């Protein structure tokens, strides 16, 4: 348990540093799409919801899991789709409008 906990803290620390470093370099032009992209990525919570909805331990847990699953899936679908929709609008300099 203790080594497990430390491993998790390790992952948290490294991912935070990587995150700060990468996000710092994101063009300010793209901060709105960045936010919808990270929205979709943090909907990785779907992993936890899938297991709870699939384990079917009790009716209550299955219902909670299914709602959580639907909420996460909403974020994944709308997050990726709207990010792509916005990014398509950033026209390369010099290209004429279509």
């Amino acid at each position, binding site marked *: 348990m203790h080594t497990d906990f430390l491993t998790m803290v390790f992952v*948290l620390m490294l991912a935070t540093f990587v995150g700060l470093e990468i996000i710092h370099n994101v063009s300010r032009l793209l901060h709105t799409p*960045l936010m919808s992209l990270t929205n979709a990525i*943090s909907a990785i919570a*779907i992993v936890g919801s899938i297991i709870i*909805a699939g384990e079917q331990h009790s009716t209550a847990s299955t219902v909670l899991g299914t709602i*959580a699953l639907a909420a996460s899936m909403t974020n994944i679908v*709308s997050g990726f789709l709207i990010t792509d929709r916005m990014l398509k609008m950033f026209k390369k300099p010099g290209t004429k409008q279509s």
Partner: protein
Amino acid sequence: MIEIIIQISYLVATALFILSLKFMNKPHTARMGVFFGVGGMTAAVVGTLLNPHIVGYEWIVVGLVIGTIIGVPLSWVPLTAVPQRTALSHAFGGLAAGLVGVAKYYLWLEEGALTQFRTGAIVLEILLGFLTFTGSLMAAGKLQEIIPTRPITYKGQNLINLALLSIAIIIGVYLVIHPEASFLFPALIVLSLLFGVLLIIPIGGADMPTVIALLNSYAGLAAVAMGFVLENKLLIAAGALDGSSGLILSIIMCRAMNRSFANVLFGAFGQLQTSAGTAEQRTVKSATAEDAAQIMENANSVVIIPGYGMAVAQAQHRVRDLYEHLTKRGVDVKFAIHPVAGRMPGHMNVLLAEAEIPYDRLIEMDDINPEMSEVDVALVIGANDVVNPAARHDKGSPIYGMPIIDADKAKTVLANKRSMNAGFAGIENELYYAQNTLMVFGDAKSTIGEMVKYFAGESGM
């Protein structure tokens, strides 16, 4: 064996997520970022579906279908509504984390498997998840203007909020010491939900960019907490990426308004200043749209400074037409973007990109300011506080110290505005009274439209 495959799929997903964010560096690689993100998510979901603990797939399918049905239309919202959508998806993220926490608590309670470590992680997950849920719903409501955007304050507000949070923390600590004290668990849920509402109520519309970024960070931290509950490193890594992204964006927003986190959260900005501005009647010079068009026609360089008012008036496409006419005549046109122009970080860039203005013309505040004194014409459309020179020198002004775009340094300033009413923060703008400023009164869409008509008519002859 299957366990190893699952772990490998999580490893791959984590790598793809990091690459996905890395591709957001530059506009021309950014769409690859979405591609990698989808890849990572697919790897993670497929890996999870292999989990041997899953006994039936029917509810999983139900969840996936419902999510898709809600998610697809949510991605069609107009770009002015993207901040609301973002807040709403933070709410969904918080809700998912909170619900998983609730389910896990009762499952483990039943099995007698509640360790102190697990309870501690669940308490954090509940707190962060549910406060993000209601807080983000409030923020979405304010952005959609279902809830009054002005700060709602009452006496002793900060004290009440602090007391609520303290009680929640005390309950949380007690639960960690006595994980079986399940009668306290619903109280923790209710307090977290309530705290989220009370935290956002006193925050005004002008601070929404910061609040959205902050809630983004909380949503990420809720996912991290869920990772600790489920002992899942993928959740921890992806949540940390989201959390650090939200953190960086909120720091940028705070800096752009010269405010601290504490000030945003507890300051109730833009309400209590009873217009301390000198009430003396000063005169402004005004010009017609046609005059303005002529001035720009004879300029070498024009910097357009858009504010959210431009988007409210739906004037982006007219502005694009104006940009094209001026560019065709050899005028160098740039757009100066203040970090808090719009209602979320980077919002103005997206709105202008939608109007098909090339992104190399969108210049950040810090890069354009050194050039402003060489610029012939600064055209201010629907922006107010972000060009108010009082922020530089008037220590009595509520926006003193906020970085601004130095529109006043341009040789001529053309300011389009509907009337002389004060801006969002309720502050007089001395830019409008400056010697080199001409006011062009009227609705942004029709005024810019008239300028475009002037150019169109001229080239038609």
